C-alpha cells in the first residue's frame, strides 16, 4: 500500500463529510470509530516504516499546477512519522474523553477535518501543500474555540486566527521567494521541499528567508514575545481544543523549523543560534515564572507549554544529533504530557465548573485515581527520569551544552522552575485539608475517563524506559539531515558548529 499517506490524509476528511449524514446521537461513536481506524492506519504506517532508512518514505507525487511548480507531494521520514502518529492518537483519545454535550456532531465533523489538516501538514513535502494544510488547520480550530469556548471565546478565536494568519502570510512570501530563487537557478518552477534542499543559497538570502520563515513559525510555536494568543486560546478553548492545540498544532511551528529553516538555511540557522537561544531562555524562565503566578490551573498548563516549547526550540538549534533528536522526541513528550494534563484539567472542570485553584484543595483524598494520574503526568512534565519528559529534556540540554554551557545552565533552570510551579499546583489542588464543600462530593474518574488516560500514562512510562523504537528512527533522519546541512553550509563557522555525528547511516 504505497499511497497510505493519501489515505491517512483524506480518510478523516471523507469521514467528516459523511459525518454530516450520521445521526446526532451516534455522531460521537462514529467519530471515535473513525479516529480509531485512522490511528490504526498510522500504526500500520509505523509498522511498514523502514527505520533503517533515514530518507523520505511512502513518497507520492502528482503534479497539480506544473506551470507554477505546485504538486501533490507527500512523504514521511523519522521526524514526521511519530508526530503524525501522535496527532492521530491525541485526536482519538481527545474524542474518547470528550465531555461536550451540545452539537456533538458539529464537533466531531470539525475534529475530523482538523485531523486531516494536521496529518497533512506533517506529511506534505510540497511547500504549497504544506502551507495549504497549515492555513486550513486554523479554520476548524477557530470554530472549536469560538463555538464551544468560554466567555471570551470569540476574542480568543479571532486572535488565534489572525495572529497565526498574519505570520504565515509573511512565511508565504518567503516560500514564493524561495521558489523564485529556485527558478532562477534551475529554470524550473518547483515548490518541492526536497528540491529546495538541494539549493545552496548565499548567506544574505538565507538570512532574509530565515527571517520570513521565522515569523511564520515563531508565532505558531509560540515563541516569546509572540506567545500571548496562547493563554487566551487555551483559557477559552474547550478541553478537546486545548488538547489538540497543545499536543499537535504547536508542534507545527517547531516542525517547520526542522523541515524548512535548518536544512534549507544552515548558515543562517547557525548565525541565529544565539538570538534564538536567548529567546528560548526567556521563554523558559519568564513563562515558568508567569505560570507560577497563575490562579487558574488551565493557565498554568498553558504557560508551561510555552516554557516547554522553549526547551524544544533550544534543542533544535543545538546543531548536533543529541540536541535535535532530543527536541523532536520532546515534541512528542510534550504533546502527550500536556495533552493529558489538559484532559485532566478538563475533567476537574466538568465536575467543579471552575478552574480556580483556590476553589480546590485536598482533592487527592476524594479522587485518588485522578490524583495518581495527575501526579504521574506532573512528574513527566517536570522531566523525571524514566518518564518520557526526561529523555527529551536531557538530550536537549546535553546537546545545547556543546554550544554554550552558560546558556545551558540558564535553560536548565527549567527543571527547577518547572518543579516550582507544577508542585505548587499539586499542593494547591490535591493536598491540604478540604476547604470547599463541593470537593467533598466529587466523584473519582469514570471508567471511560480512566481508560482514555491510562494509555497515555503507559506511553509516557514506556517511552521513558525504552525510547529506542521511537528515538532510533528520529535519530537516523536527524543524523542524515545534519550530515547534509554540514555539506551544504557555506561559511566555515557553520561547518564547524554543525556537528556531524560519528555514527551515521546513509540516506537510501
Amino acid at each position: 500500500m504505497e499511497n497510505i499517506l493519501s489515505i491517512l490524509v483524506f480518510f478523516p476528511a471523507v469521514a467528516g463529510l459523511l459525518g454530516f449524514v450520521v445521526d446526532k446521537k451516534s455522531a460521537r461513536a462514529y467519530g471515535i470509530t473513525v479516529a480509531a481506524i485512522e490511528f490504526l492506519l498510522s500504526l500500520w504506517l509505523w509498522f511498514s516504516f523502514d527505520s533503517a532508512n533515514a530518507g523520505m518514505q511512502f513518497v507520492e507525487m502528482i503534479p497539480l499546477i506544473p506551470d507554477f511548480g505546485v504538486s501533490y507531494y507527500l512523504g514521511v521520514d523519522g521526524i514526521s512519522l511519530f508526530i503524525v502518529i501522535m496527532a492521530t492518537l491525541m485526536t482519538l483519545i481527545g474524542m474518547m474523553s470528550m465531555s461536550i454535550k451540545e452539537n456533538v456532531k458539529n464537533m466531531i465533523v470539525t475534529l475530523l477535518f482538523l485531523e486531516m489538516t494536521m496529518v497533512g501538514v506533517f506529511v506534505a513535502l510540497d511547500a504549497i501543500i504544506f502551507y495549504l494544510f497549515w492555513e486550513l488547520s486554523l479554520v476548524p480550530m477557530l470554530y472549536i474555540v469560538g463555538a464551544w469556548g468560554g466567555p471570551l471565546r470569540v476574542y480568543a478565536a479571532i486572535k488565534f486566527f489572525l495572529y497565526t494568519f498574519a505570520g504565515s502570510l509573511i512565511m508565504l512570501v518567503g516560500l514564493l521567494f524561495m521558489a523564485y530563487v529556485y527558478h532562477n537557478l534551475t529554470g524550473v518552477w518547483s515548490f518541492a521541499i526536497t528540491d529546495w534542499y538541494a539549493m545552496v543559497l548565499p548567506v544574505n538570502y538565507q538570512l532574509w528567508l530565515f527571517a520570513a520563515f521565522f515569523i511564520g513559525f515563531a508565532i505558531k510555536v509560540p515563541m516569546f514575545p509572540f506567545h500571548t494568543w496562547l493563554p487566551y486560546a487555551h483559557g477559552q478553548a474547550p478541553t478537546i481544543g486545548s488538547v489538540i492545540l497543545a499536543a499537535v498544532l504547536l508542534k507545527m511551528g517547531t516542525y517547520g523549523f526542522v523541515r524548512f529553516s535548518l536544512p534549507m538555511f544552515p548558515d543562517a540557522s547557525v548565525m541565529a543560534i544565539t538570538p534564538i537561544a536567548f529567546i528560548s531562555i526567556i521563554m523558559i524562565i519568564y513563562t515558568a515564572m508567569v505560570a507560577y503566578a497563575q490562579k487558574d490551573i488551565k493557565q498554568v498548563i498553558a504557560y508551561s507549554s510555552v516554557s516547554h516549547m522553549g526547551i524544544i526550540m533550544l534543542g533544535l538549534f543545538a546543531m548536533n544529533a543529541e540536541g535535535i533528536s532530543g527536541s523532536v522526541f520532546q515534541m512528542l513528550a510534550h504533546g502527550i504530557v500536556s495533552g493529558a494534563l489538559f484532559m485532566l484539567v478538563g475533567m476537574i472542570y466538568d465536575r467543579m465548573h471552575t478552574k480556580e485553584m483556590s476553589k480546590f484543595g485536598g482533592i487527592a483524598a476524594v479522587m485518588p485515581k485522578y490524583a495518581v494520574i495527575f501526579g504521574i503526568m506532573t512528574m513527566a512534565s517536570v522531566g523525571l527520569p524514566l518518564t518520557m519528559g526526561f529523555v527529551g529534556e536531557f538530550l536537549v540540554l546535553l546537546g545545547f551544552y556543546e554550544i554554550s554551557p552558560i546558556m545551558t545552565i540558564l535553560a536548565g533552570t527549567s527543571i527547577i522552575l518547572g518543579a516550582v510551579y507544577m508542585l505548587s499546583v499539586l499542593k494547591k489542588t490535591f493536598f491540604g485539608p478540604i476547604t470547599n464543600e463541593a470537593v467533598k462530593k466529587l466523584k473519582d474518574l469514570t471508567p471511560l475517563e480512566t481508560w482514555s488516560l491510562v494509555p497515555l500514562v503507559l506511553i509516557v512510562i514506556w517511552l521513558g524506559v525504552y525510547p529506542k523504537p521511537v528515538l532510533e528512527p528520529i535519530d537516523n533522519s536527524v543524523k542524515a539531515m545534519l550530515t547534509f546541512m554540514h555539506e551544504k553550509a557555506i561559511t566555515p563557522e557553520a561547518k564547524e558548529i554543525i556537528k556531524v555525528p560519528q555514527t551515521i547511516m546513509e540516506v537510501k
Partner: protein
Amino acid sequence: MMETLVYIALFAPFAGSLFAALFGMGKRQVFVGIVASALLFISFVASVMLAIYVVKTGTPIHVMMMEWINAGDIRIPFGFVVDQVSVTMMVVVTLVSTVVHIYSIGYMDHDKSFNRFFSYLSAFVFSMLVLVMSDNFLGLFIGWEGVGVCSWLLVGFWYHKPDQPREVNPSISPSWAANEAFIMNRIADLGMLIGIFIIYWNTGTLQYDEVFAQLPYLPQWILDAAAIALFIGAMGKSAQFPLHTWLTDAMEGPTPVSALIHAATMVTAGVFLVIRANPLFAMTPEVSFFIAALGTFVAFFAASMALVNRDLKRIIAFSTLSQLGYMFAAAGLGAYWIALFHLAAHAFFKALLFLGAGNVMHAMHDELDIFKMGGLKKVMKWTYLYMGIASLALAGIPPFAGFFSKDAIIETAFNEGTYVLWIILVVTAGMTAFYSFRQVFLTFWGDERYKQYGIHPHEMYKFVLVAMSPLAVLAIIAGFFQPWFHEFITTLLPDYEMSHHTHELILVLTAIVLAFAVGGIALAYKMYAKGLKRDPKVENSFIYRLLANQYYIPQLYEEMISKPYAMISEALWQKVDLKIVDATVDTIAKFFYYTGDGVRKMQTGNLSNYLNWMAVGGVALLVVAALSAVIG
C-alpha cells in the same frame, strides 16, 4: 547465577512496591506490609550473597540489562555493577530497609493509607538500589531523582494536614516540606546534570570505568568544573549548607521514613557519589579540600542547632546532618573508605535512634516535645535501651560503632595536618555527645512531665522491638569489623593509612576525643538527668534564640527567595505579559481599526465631496508623478 541474584536484589523491592500499589487505594491490609517486607528480606539475602561472592572473588559483577538512550553519539544503557562499594551500600540499604519495613507494619498499623505507604517505601528502596548499583552517571541520576520523588511522596505522606505558621510548626506542613525538599534537591540536581554534561562532552561516555580511565588526559580546569558540579548535586541530597533546611523539615514524614530515608540511606547518597567518583575528586585537591572544610563546618553548624532544640526528631535530624558533615570531611580529605565505613555504621545506629524515637512518639501519641516527656524508661525499657545504645554509638563511646568510625575521621583530620578542622571536629564530638544525651535524659530520666498532659505511654509491640534488635547489635559490634572492612574495601577504593607521626600520637588523640565526648555526656547528665530545669534568662539569650531558630535561615530564605520570586512572577504576569506584550499586539490591531474609522470619514456621501476627492486625487497623482520624474 550471580546476574540473577543482582536482578533479584534489584527488583524484589520493585515487585513489592507494585504489589502494594495494587492495593494502594484499598483499605489497610496487613499482608501487604508482610509481603513487601518479605520481598525486601529476599533482596537483603541476595545482597548478602552477592557481598560474600565479591568478598571471596574480589571481582565485581557487571550486568547490562538493556539500552536506554541512544541518540547522536551518546549511548546510555541500563547497566549495573556490583563491586565492593555498591555491595556495601546494598547490604546496608536492604538491611535497614527490611528492618524499617517490619517496623512500619507495627508503626503504621492505625493509618488508613497503610498499603500506599508500603508501595512508596519499597519504591524508594528500589530507586536507592538503582542509585548505588548503576554503572553510569545517568543511571545514578535516575536513582537520584527516584529517591527524590519517593522522599517527596513520603514526606508529604500525610498530605491532608493544613499549613501552619512557622511559630506553631517550623516546617509548615507535610506537603510544604515535601515540596521544599523536592525543589531544593532539584536545584542541586541541575548542578549534577551540568556535571554529567561536562563529563560527556569531554570523555564521550558516562560509564564510570571509561570516564575514570580518561580523567588523566583532561585539563585540570575541566576536572575541577566537573568535580564542583557533581558536588553541588551531592550537597543537595546530603543536605549540606546552604541547602540543608529541607532535611529537618522532612521530619514531617512518618518516623520510619525519617529513619530510612533521612538518616540511613538517601541523605548519604551525596557521600556515596563522592566515594564513587573518587578518582575524579582525588585529582582535584582544591575541590576536595573545600568539601572537607564544608563538611566540617556543617558538622559543627548542625550540632550547634541540635544543642537547644526541643523536638525529638529534629534533634536526631540535626545530628544526621552533623554526621554527614563528618563523612564529607573524611571523603574530602581522601579517606574514602573511612567515609564509607562511617556511612555504614551511622546508618545502623541512626536508624536505630530514629526507630526508638518512633516508639516514643507512638507511646506519646505523636508528641515530640522532649520538654513534655521524661521518666519514660520505666514504661519503655527496651526503647530506652535501644536509644541508649544508639546515643552512645553516636557520641562515639567505645566499644560502640560510632567510636571507631568517627574517631578515624577525626584522626584523619589531624593526620592531614588540617588542625583547624581537627579542632572543630573534636569540639563537635563533644557537642554531639551533649545533645544526644540531653535528649536521652530529658526523654527517659527525671520527672514524668507527660502526666500533666494526660498521656499514658506504653511500650511498642514485641515484634517491632525484635525487628529493631539487629540494628542494636550492629550498633554495638559494627566497629570491630573495621580492619576487615578496611582490607576488603581498599581492593577498590584508594587505601588511606595514618602516618607514623599520627600513629605515635594515636592514643593521645583518642583520649582527647573521648574526653570531649565523656565531658559532653557528663554535662548533659548534670543539667538534665534530674529532670527539666528551665532557665528563662538562657532561653531568651540571643545565642539560644539564634540556635533555636536555626540561625533564622529558613526565615531568610522565605523573605529573600520565596516571597520575592512570587512577587516578581506576579509582576511579570500582570505588568509585563498582560500590560506590555499582549497590549502591544492589541494596540496594533486597534491602530488599524481606528485608522479605518478615520479614513471612512472621507466617505461623506456628499457627491460634491466625492468630485473634489477626484480632483484632489488628480492633483496628487500629478505631484507624485512629477516627483518621481524629478527623482528617478
